[in-house]
C-alpha cells in the first residue's frame, strides 16, 4: 500500500515538472510582455517581472488596430464555428443513420479533401472570392475556412451521432413529442460534448489561419489577428525587434483563445471521451 502511494506521489511530482516545462513558453511570453524592452535586450534573461510595466501593452495597443483585428477575427471565427457545426452535424446524421448510394464515396472524399496542401491554392481562392466581390469581407475567408474544417468535424461528429441510439428518440416520440422535439430534448444534449470538441477544432483553425487571409483581406482595416501580429513582428524587425511589445502583442492574440478553452474545458474532455469510445 505504501509502495503504491510513494509511486503515486513520485509520478505526481513528475507530472508537475512536465506541466511546468510544457507551460514554460506561455509563461515566458506573458512574463516578458511585462518587462521593459531595455531590460529584455540584455544578454542575461530576466525570469520574473520584478517591476512589471504596462508600457509594452500600451505600445502594442497604441494605434487601435488591435481591436479592429480582434473584431474581424471574432466575426470570421464565430461564423466558421456555427456554419461548420451545423453543416457537419447534418452530414454526420446522414452518414451514421442512413445507408444510401454514394455514402462510401462521400466518406472517402471527405477524408481526402483535407489532405490537399493549401499553399498552392491562393490564386484560385482569390479569383473566386474577388469575382463575387467578397474581398475584404467576413464571408470570403469564412467560406474557405468552413470548407477546410468541415471534413474533419463531420468525421468527429459521426462517432457521436452513431453512439446515440435512434430508439431513444422513438421512445420519446411515442410519449407524444414531435420528431423535432424529441431531437432537441434527447439527442442534442447527448451530442453537446461532441459539438464542443469539434467546435474547438474549428475555432482553432479559423483563429490561426493567415496565408489565405493575407490575400483575401488585402486592406489593413480588415486584418485578422494573426495578420496583425505578423505585421507587428515584421514592422518591428525592420528596425530593432522590440521583444517586449512583440510578446505583449502575442499575449493579446493568445488570451481570447485561452479564455475560450478554459470555458469549454470540462465539456472538451468529456467530448473527447465520447469520441474516443466510438473511434
Amino acid at each position, binding site marked *: 500500500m505504501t509502495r503504491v502511494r510513494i509511486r503515486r506521489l513520485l509520478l505526481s511530482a513528475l507530472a508537475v515538472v512536465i506541466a511546468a516545462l510544457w507551460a514554460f513558453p506561455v509563461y515566458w511570453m506573458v512574463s516578458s510582455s511585462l518587462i521593459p524592452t531595455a531590460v529584455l535586450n540584455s544578454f542575461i534573461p530576466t525570469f520574473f517581472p520584478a517591476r512589471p510595466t504596462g508600457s509594452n501593452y500600451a505600445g502594442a495597443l497604441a494605434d487601435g488596430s488591435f481591436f479592429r483585428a480582434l473584431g474581424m477575427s471574432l466575426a470570421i471565427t464565430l461564423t466558421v464555428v456555427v456554419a461548420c457545426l451545423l453543416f457537419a452535424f447534418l452530414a454526420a446524421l446522414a452518414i451514421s443513420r442512413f445507408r444510401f448510394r454514394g455514402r462510401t464515396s462521400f466518406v472517402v472524399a471527405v477524408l481526402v479533401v483535407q489532405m490537399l496542401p493549401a499553399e498552392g491554392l491562393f490564386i484560385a481562392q482569390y479569383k473566386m472570392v474577388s469575382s463575387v466581390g467578397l474581398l475584404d469581407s467576413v464571408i470570403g475567408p469564412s467560406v474557405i475556412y468552413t470548407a477546410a474544417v468541415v471534413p474533419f468535424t463531420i468525421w468527429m461528429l459521426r462517432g457521436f451521432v452513431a453512439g446515440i441510439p435512434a430508439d431513444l428518440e422513438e421512445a420519446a416520440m411515442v410519449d407524444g413529442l414531435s420528431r423535432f422535439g424529441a431531437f432537441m430534448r434527447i439527442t442534442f444534449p447527448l451530442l453537446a460534448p461532441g459539438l464542443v470538441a469539434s467546435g474547438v477544432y474549428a475555432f482553432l483553425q479559423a483563429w490561426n489561419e493567415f496565408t489565405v487571409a493575407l490575400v483575401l483581406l488585402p486592406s489593413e482595416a480588415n486584418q485578422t489577428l494573426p495578420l496583425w501580429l505578423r505585421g507587428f513582428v515584421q*514592422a518591428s524587425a525592420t528596425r530593432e525587434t522590440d521583444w517586449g511589445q512583440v510578446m505583449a502583442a502575442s499575449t493579446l492574440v493568445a488570451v481570447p483563445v485561452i479564455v475560450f478553452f478554459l470555458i469549454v474545458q470540462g465539456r472538451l474532455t468529456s467530448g473527447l471521451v465520447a469520441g474516443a469510445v466510438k473511434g
Partner: protein
Amino acid sequence: MTMKKIGAVAAATAALLVLAGCSTPAPEDAGGTDITLWLMGGDTPDALRDYLKTEYADATGGTLTIEEQSWGDALSKLTTALPDAENTPDVVEIGNTWSPTFTTVGAFTDISDMYDELGGDSLLPSFVEIGEVDGANYALPYYFGSRYMFYRKDIWSAAGKEVPTTLAEFNETAASLKTATQSGFYIGGQDWRNGISWIFANGGELAVKDGDQWVSTLSDPNTIEGLTQLQSLFQSASLAPVTEYDSTPWVNINNNEATGAPEAATIIAPGWAHWSIGDLAPDPNDDTKQVATWNDEVFGTFVLPGVDGGVAPVFAGGSNIAISAASKNQAAAKELMKIIFSEEYQTMLGENGLGPANLDYADSLGDDQFAVALRESAAGSKLTPAAPGWAAVEGSGLLEEFFGKVNEGGDIPALAAEYDEKITALLNG
C-alpha cells in the same frame, strides 16, 4: 401619354443619367476619385504619408488611402491584386529590383508622357532604367538609400587603425579587429545584398544579357575574385551566423548592457540606421525604453573603398513607384504621381534621410556626415540585373543559399557553376 409627360420623363431620365455619371466619373476625370497607394514597409515616415493624403484631397477632392505592405508578404499580394481591376491598388511602391518582373508582364501603366513633367533626366538614372521596357517608362524611382559603413572609432584607434582607402586594406583591418567576442566586421553569411559589393568592386556581375537572353555570371573570373575576398572576409572578420541574411546590424555596434562592449567594430547599414546608433541611455520620457545618442568621439562613418581606392559600388537600395495598369482611376493616379514628384515632397524625403528620386533636390539631405556618406556611396552604387525573372530569383532564396554556402567555406568555382545553372533557368521569366 401626352407630350408633356414624355418630356418630363425624358428630363428625369437625363437627370438620372447625369447623377449616374457623377457617381462613376469618366476615366479621365480625377475629380473626387478615391484611390489607394501601397507603400512597402515602414520607411515612409508618417509626416510624409499625411502630406500625401492632404495634398491629394486638396488637388482632387478625393480620399487617398495608404496601405502598408510588409516586404515578406508583398509578392503574393501584388500577384493577386495587381491584375484584378476591381481591387487593384492604384499606385504601388515596389522594391527597385522587382521592377523588371512586373513591368515585363504589363502590370504597370506606360507613363512616358509624364516623364518630363515628373522630373525627366533629373531622376536617378539607374532606377529609371530598371523601370523601362523598350524605352518606355513604366516605373520611376521613389527613393534610394545605399549603404555605407559605421565603425567604432574607439576600437579602431585603440588598435592603431586608420579609415581604409582600398578594399584590401578594409578587409585586412576588419580581420585584425576580430576577437572571440567581437566581429571586426559584422556581416551575415547569407547577406547577399551587402555581399555583392565585393563582386561589383572587383568588376564582377551577377548576370548579363547575352543577345536576348539573360545569363547568370557567377562563374565569371571577376565575380569569383569578389566571392573569394568575401569568403575570406566572412571567415576572418565576422561572428555572424552563416545563415543570417537580413540582420539589424546596428544592435551590434552599440555597447551591450551586459558586457559594456559592442558585438562588432564595424557594420554596413542603410543611412537611416544612424538614428539607432550611439550611446544608450534611458529615454527621459519613458524610462522603460532606451534612446541612442550619436557620439562623434565613439562612432564614425566611411564609404566602402574600391579595389584601387575611390568608392566601391554598393547595392543601390530603394524603391520604384508605378501606376497599376488595371486601375480604373488612371487620371487620379497620375495626380498622385505629380504630388509625389513635386519639389516639396522630394525635399521632405531628403529631410527624412531618404535619397530623393529627383537628384535636383538631393541637397535636402543636408550636409552632415550621413548625407555626405549617402551621396558618396550612392554615386557609385549599382543595381541588380534588370532581368524579367529577377524577382523570382530573389524570391526563390537561391542567392541567400549560394552566398551562405560560399561563406561557409565551400568550393567557389563549383558552387558558382551549380548556381549559374539554377539562376539562369529563372532569369528570363
